[in-house]
C-alpha cells in the first residue's frame, strides 16, 4: 500500500467513523426521546391563552419528534411567570424534557434588574413563537379621548386608564405615551383581571384600556364593541399597522409626530419587543444542540399541521404568525444586552 493510499484509507476510516459517530449521536437523540415524557411548564393558570397554546402543542408536537415522546402540560403559575421561567432555567434537567412557556414580556424582569431573576433570557434556547401579539390602546367613543392628541391636550381630568398592576400592557402603553408624547393619564390600578377592567369600561368607571391585539379581535366583549362602535382605538404598538386597524397610528408614527428623543425610542423598543415574543416556547441553556434542533423542527412541523391550525382557528387563537426559533433567539439576545441608559429608562417606566 502506498503512503497515499494509506492516507486515503485512514481518511476514509476517519470519515466513516465520524459519520458513524454522528449517526450514532442522532440515533442516541432519537433513542433519547423514545418512551420519555416532555413537560411544557406554563407560566400561567389553566384556561388562558398561554395554557391553551401549550395544550395544543402537547397534543400535536410529540408525533413530529423522533421517538414520539409523550408531552404533558404542567401549570406553574406565580410571581408573574418568574417561578416557571426560573424553574426551567435552573432546576429542571437540561436534557430537553422541560419546555418553558414564559410570559412574552418576561425578559423585562431581567432588564429591570429584578434580583429574583435567575435566568438570562438570551441564553434560553428558543423553539419559536406562534403568535405575535402587539398591543392597542382604546377609549370609549363617548369620552373626550379620541386620539393621542386629546390625551396630550386634556390635562384636567385626564383619561382614566384601567390597570391590573404595574406589569400589564395597559400600564406599559400609558407610561410610554406619557414619556414619548406627553400624554396625561389617571392610572386606575388594582383590578383583579382584564375582565374586570372591561366591565369598568362598560359601566364608564374608566374610559380607556390597553391590551394585546389577538384577543381584541378574537372574543367578546370586544366583538360587540366593534360592532356597536363603542370604542375608538388610539394607538397600536406593532411596527406596522394591523390589517384590521388600518387607520390607527402606530406608536412609531406617534413618536415621529411628537419628535420623541432617541433614548425614549430605544426604551419603547425594548418594552414593546414583548409583542414580538408573543407566546414563545424554549428550553434551558444546557440542552444538547441536536435535541434543540429536533424540537425546533418538530415545533414548526406542528404549526404547519392543518389539524392544529383548525383547532387554533376555532378557539380564536389566530392569527398565527409563527416566528422561528432562530428569530426569537436573536430578539432575546438583543433585549438582554442593553446599554445602561436604556436599562435605567426601562426601570423608570416600570417603576422598579
Amino acid at each position, binding site marked *: 500500500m502506498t503512503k497515499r493510499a494509506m492516507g486515503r484509507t485512514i481518511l476514509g476510516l476517519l470519515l466513516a467513523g465520524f459519520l458513524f459517530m454522528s449517526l450514532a449521536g442522532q440515533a442516541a437523540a432519537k433513542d433519547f426521546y423514545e418512551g420519555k415524557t416532555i413537560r411544557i411548564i406554563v407560566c400561567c393558570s389553566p384556561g388562558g391563552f398561554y395554557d*391553551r397554546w401549550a395544550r395544543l402543542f402537547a397534543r400535536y408536537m410529540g408525533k413530529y419528534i423522533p421517538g414520539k415522546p409523550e408531552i404533558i402540560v404542567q401549570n406553574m403559575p406565580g410571581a408573574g411567570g418568574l417561578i416557571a421561567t426560573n424553574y426551567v432555567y435552573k432546576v429542571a434537567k437540561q436534557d430537553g424534557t422541560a419546555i418553558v412557556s414564559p410570559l412574552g414580556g418576561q425578559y423585562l424582569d431581567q432588564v429591570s434588574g429584578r434580583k429574583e431573576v435567575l435566568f438570562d433570557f438570551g441564553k434560553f434556547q428558543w423553539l419559536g413563537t406562534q403568535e405575535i401579539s402587539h398591543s392597542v390602546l382604546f377609549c370609549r367613543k363617548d369620552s373626550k379621548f379620541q386620539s393621542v392628541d386629546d390625551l396630550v391636550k386634556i390635562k384636567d381630568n385626564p383619561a382614566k386608564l384601567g390597570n391590573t*398592576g404595574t406589569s400589564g400592557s395597559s400600564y406599559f402603553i400609558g407610561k410610554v405615551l406619557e414619556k414619548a408624547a406627553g400624554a396625561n393619564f389617571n392610572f386606575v*390600578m388594582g*383590578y383583579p383581571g382584564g375582565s374586570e377592567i372591561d366591565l369598568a369600561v362598560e359601566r364608564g368607571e374608566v374610559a380607556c384600556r390597553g391590551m394585546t391585539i389577538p384577543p381584541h379581535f378574537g372574543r367578546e*366583549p370586544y366583538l360587540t364593541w366593534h360592532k356597536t362602535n363603542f370604542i375608538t382605538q388610539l394607538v397600536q404598538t406593532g411596527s406596522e399597522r394591523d390589517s384590521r386597524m388600518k387607520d390607527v397610528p402606530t406608536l412609531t408614527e406617534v413618536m415621529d409626530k411628537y419628535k420623541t428623543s432617541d433614548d425614549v425610542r430605544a426604551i419603547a423598543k425594548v418594552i414593546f419587543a414583548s409583542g414580538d415574543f408573543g407566546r414563545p416556547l424554549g428550553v434551558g441553556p444546557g440542552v444538547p444542540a441536536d435535541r434543540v434542533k429536533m424540537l425546533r423542527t418538530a415545533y414548526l412541523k406542528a404549526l404547519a399541521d392543518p389539524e392544529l391550525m383548525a*383547532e387554533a382557528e376555532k378557539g380564536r387563537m389566530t392569527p398565527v404568525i409563527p416566528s422561528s426559533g432562530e428569530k426569537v433567539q436573536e430578539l432575546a439576545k438583543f433585549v438582554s444586552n442593553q446599554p445602561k441608559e436604556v436599562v435605567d429608562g426601562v426601570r423608570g417606566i416600570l417603576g422598579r
Partner: protein
Amino acid sequence: MMFDAFIEGLLHVLSWPAFGFLLLGALVGFVVGILPGLGGLATLALMLPFAYKIQEPISAFAFLLGMHAITGTTGDITSILFGIPGEGTAAATIMDGYPMTKNGEAGRAMGAALMSSLVAGLEGAVILALAIPIMRPLVLFFGSPELFMLAILGITFIASLSGSSLTKGLLCGGIGLMLASIGVDPQTGTLRYTMGTLYLWDGLSLGPVVVGLFAIPEIIDLSVRGTSIAETKVEKITGVMEGVKDTFRHFGLTMRCGFIGAFIGALPGLGGGVSQWLAYGHAVQSSKDQSSFGKGDVRGVLGPGAANNSREGGNLIPTVAFGIPGSSAMAILLGAFLIVGLNPGPEMLTKHLDVTFAMVWILVVANIITAGACFLFLNQLVKLTFVRGHLLIPFLLMFVFLGAFAAHNNFSDIIVTVIFGLVGYVMVLFQWPRPPFVLGLVLGTIVENYLWISSSAYGAGWLVHPTVVCIALLIAGTLIYSAIQARRGRSLEEDLEKRIGVEGTRQ
C-alpha cells in the same frame, strides 16, 4: 318566545346524546371532586379539547358544565367527613359539618349539604333564568365603590363569627386582613412582606392556608384521641333523610344563602372564596341562638352548602351577558363557547336563548343527578368515619398534602400548609376563632383594591353614590342589631347562671 326557549332548552338537555354527555361529565366530576390533587379547574382545562370532538353546543356544555357543577357539591363531602376541604373555596362547610361528623351525625350533615346544594342549585338556575332580561343593567349597577362596600359588609360578619370572645375575633380578623397585604402591591409594584421568596409575590394562596388551618388540627386531634372520627358510637347512622328534612325546616335560610351565592357569583371581582363564608356568616348572624355554631349546628352546613352551588348560576350571568367570565372556571368555559361556534355575549340572550336556557337546565339536572348518586352510597362513605383514626391518618395526610400541592405545583404550598396547620392547632387549643381570620384574608385584598380604584376613579364622589349609602345603612343596621342581640344574649346567660348556678355556657 321566552317560554318556548325555556322548554326547548329542557328538551335539548334531555335528548340524546346530550343527556349521555351529561352523565359522563357527572361521572368525571364526581371522581375528581372526591379525589384530592386534581382540582376542578385543571380538569376542566384538561377536558376542554373534547369540545372539538363533540361540536354540538348543548352536548359540549352538558359535558363540561355538568362536570363543573358537580365538583362543587362533592367538595363538601370531604369537608364534612374528614374536615379536609376539597378546594379552598369550599371550606366553610367544615365549620359545622365536621363537628357533626364527630358527633356521629355525618349522615345528617351530608344529607343537609346535598339537599341544600340541590335546592340552591335550582334556585341559582331560576335566578339566572329570571335575570336574563335584566342581566346587563344588573351587572353594570355594581361598580367598584359598591364592591368595596359589599366587602366591608362582609368584614362586619367577623363580629358574629367570633364565637365567645369578640376581642379575639376582631384580633384574628385583623391579622387576616394584615396577611392579605402580602404580595406585589398593585399600585406601585412594591413587594410587601415577601421575605425574598417568589412564592409570596402573589400573596398567601387561600387553598393551602385553609387546608392547613382546618384540616391539620383535626388530624392532630384525631391521632391524640386515638378513636375514630365519630366520637360517639351510634346504633343507627342518623339518617341522611334527617338532613334532607333539615333543609326544609330551615328553608328560608337555605334560600337566603342560595341568593347570597348567586348574587356574589354574578359580580366578577369578588372571587370564589367570598360567597361561602358570607353565607356562613349570615347563617350565624341571623340565628337567635348562636352558641351551637361551630359545634355541629346543621344550619352552619346548610348555609355554605347552598351558597356553593347557586354561585354557578350567578357566575353564568356576566359570562352570558357580556362574554366576561364570572370566575376562572367560566373563563375556561368561554373557550368552549368559541370552540362550538357560539359567541358569548348579547347573542346568547336573543338568537341562542335556547342554549342559554339549556345551560340553566344542565345545572339543574346535574345537581339532581349528583344528589341522587350521593344518596345511593352515602351510608357507605359515612362508615369510614367509624374506622379507627390511626388507620385513616396516613390517607388523610396524603389527601391534605396532595391537595395543597396540586393547585400550583409548588412545594412552598406544602410549607404554608404545615405552618398554618400549626397556627390552626394553637388557635384551637387557646380558643381563638378561625373563621374571622379566613374572612379577613379573603376580603383584605378586595377591600384594598376597590378602595384605591374607587378613590382614583371617582375622587370622594363615590361616598355619596345611592347604592353605597344604602349598603352603608345596611352595615350600620347589622352592627346595631348584633350589638343588641349580644347584650340580650348576655343578660339571658347571666339570668340562667343566677337561677341554676352553673358556670356559664359550655365552651
